[in-house]
């Protein structure tokens, strides 16, 4: 039975994914949701890069660096979700497409992979080194492994939710154990519940903030954002020997 703050009341109707602490199914729903958010955001980041570069008429980056990756990532995820492996890993209940779809999608992946091998290191002069860097780009350097890492990184959302609900359940059980003390028990119960849950929310709001921030900066921005530039310095007189304090 899903619950809120570990108590089955009104909020249990909202908790549609089930309780991650009590049922393995609830935890797996949480897991799937976190991964799904990751897939959506990573592909969204790639699409931003694609359209940004198309708009700037920067066609080599758009068509040789970005579009093949969108094709590869979406195709690989579709193949994975259509396979029995995904079912045994409990990512999906049943394959979303017939297994035959991998035979079609592989003809999208191969040309995209060839484009990346041939053109991703196009600034290199010598062809041997260019192909070598292309293969590295396809696999290790910003390649398939790094996309996999980026997507799996979103599972941290599940872990953070798990920590929050775990500490919540722990606080409840401590509080209700202490509450069985006669007379003063009820006071201890209320104090422990209020301070415990406020503390839990505080520490985990911080955790949720820091980790989603990291997901934005590391996993999402790295797909399209190019830093650089320098901070704006307003026009003002710069004195060497006097310092005006307001």
């Amino acid at each position, binding site marked *: 039975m899903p619950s809120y703050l570990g108590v089955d009341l009104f909020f249990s109707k909202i908790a549609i994914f089930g309780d991650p602490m009590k049922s393995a199914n609830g935890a797996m729903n949480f897991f799937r949701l976190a991964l799904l958010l990751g897939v959506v955001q990573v592909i969204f980041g790639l699409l931003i890069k694609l359209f940004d570069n198309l708009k700037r008429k920067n066609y080599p980056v758009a068509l040789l660096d970005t579009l093949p990756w969108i094709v590869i990532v979406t195709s690989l995820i579709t193949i994975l979700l259509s396979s029995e492996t995904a079912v045994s890993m409990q990512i999906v209940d049943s394959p979303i497409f017939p297994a035959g779809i991998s035979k079609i999608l592989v003809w999208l992946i191969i040309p995209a992979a060839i484009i990346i091998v041939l053109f991703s290191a196009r600034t290199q002069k010598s062809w041997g080194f260019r192909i070598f860097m292309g293969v590295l780009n396809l696999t290790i350097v910003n390649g398939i492994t790094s996309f996999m890492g980026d997507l799996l990184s979103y599972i941290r959302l599940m*872990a953070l939710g798990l*920590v929050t609900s*775990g*500490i919540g359940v722990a606080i409840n059980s401590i509080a209700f154990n202490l509450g069985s003390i006669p007379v003063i028990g009820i006071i201890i119960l209320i104090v422990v519940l209020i301070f415990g849950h406020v503390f839990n929310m505080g*520490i985990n709001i911080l955790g949720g903030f820091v*980790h989603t*921030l990291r997901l934005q900066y590391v996993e999402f921005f790295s797909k399209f954002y190019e830093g650089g530039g320098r901070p704006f310095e307003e026009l003002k007189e710069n004195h060497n020997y006097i310092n005006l304090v307001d």
Partner: protein
Amino acid sequence: MSDQALGIAFTILGAAIAAGLAGIGSAIGIGYPARAAAGVIAEDPSKFGSLFLLVVLPGTQGFYGFVAAFLIIGKISQVINLTQGIQFLFAGLPVAFTGLISAIHQGKVSAAGVGLVAKRPKEVIKGVILAAMVETYAVLGLLISFFLINAVKLG
């Protein structure tokens, strides 16, 4: 000692190691940025707010260990043989060790972040992100511990 009693003892050892080692890590990890922050606050007390963020960051590993230990404790009553006890002990190890080591190193990164805030107060978020990079592996350790604890067959 009976098989069940030994199993329960090992289960308790698993919970104790998970909470204990991760907690030690967090305690050491908070120590570094807290000492550095005290020095910065001595110069500029108004920076306390942004420094507090960096100081409490290495504290989360202790909670990861706590949650893993709590999950193991919830299963103690169902342990009936030695094998299950040892399985719970091993299931607690990922969060224990990743928590211990990552909290200490996150503390060092946070302490460097405190130095960053002292010089450039507006860049506090970048210091926080650098510290969060270290924490990733403690989160992964907790996840694996969680899945391992759930994977132990009881009864």
